[in-house]
């Protein structure tokens, strides 16, 4: 079970949150000119890294706000929590994993 620090409410149990997938995926502005392959890239292809993953969570049982989390998919360590619209922070990981 993760202990997730909601940027608004403070540290809460994982069961209060819902996972909202990878963060920082911008919708294309030139949709009319895009090919099917490019649309598929935008819609379906995700990073799925082993290591730091930038993702969105929503505090469903609390303040009901979305926010971003930088989480390690190997250790589940949460490196950073930041509000929507802010850029992804660079994360230096120990052991170079």
């Amino acid at each position: 079970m993760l202990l997730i620090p909601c940027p608004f409410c403070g540290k809460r149990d994982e069961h209060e949150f819902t996972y909202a997938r990878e963060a920082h995926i911008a919708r294309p502005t030139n949709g009319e000119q895009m090919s099917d392959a490019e649309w598929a890239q935008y819609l379906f292809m995700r990073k799925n890294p082993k290591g730091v993953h930038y993702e969105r969570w929503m505090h469903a049982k609390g303040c009901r706000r979305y926010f971003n989390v930088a989480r390690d998919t190997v250790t589940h360590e949460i490196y950073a929590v930041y509000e929507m619209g802010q850029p992804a922070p660079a994360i230096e990981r120990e052991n170079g994993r």
Partner: protein
Amino acid sequence: MVETYQRRSALAHLGLVARAAGSSRERAGIIMSEVPHRTIVNIRGMASDPAFSSAVQTATGLPLPEAANAVSSAGVWQILWLGPNEWWITGPDGEADSLIEALRANFAGQHAAACDVSESRAIIRLKGPKARDVLMRGVSLDLHPRAFRVGQCAQTGLSRANALLHLVDDAPTFEIYVLKSFSDYLWRWLETVARDFGLAVEA
């Protein structure tokens, strides 16, 4: 047939008045009751905008709590923090319309909203020295008096129902706001747990 409509509180069907009459408060670790028909007005706006917070203060006489999980209260009125731009104003029955009118007049020209959500929630009051022990079986929040203080509120999951907990005094008294459709379930769950600590029902 609007004339025949009878307004009932969410837990009226449980017959709490009759049960309270037959319930002894001696040695009760927990006293449970329903708070019926409280006005709840949801407001949205930017806390960072001084015009918004002063509009709320003018209409309610209460300062807008900007800190997370904070409550400001005076007498029968409270403002409960729900999120960075969302609050509940709660008070006596029948006050919603006049309060909303005052708020909307003050909100003129702002990106802010007020709406009546009184009928959406039931309120269960849990009072007594064992109130924390009961809640601790259903929430993952730290309820230690050092972490969750009098005059604080928190929205969380209470035995799978979404609920707002407000610690009113250090009896301790908790007021639990829950969606009406979950109130029967949550009352029965709380009652089942509270029996372990000596339960009395109050009307």
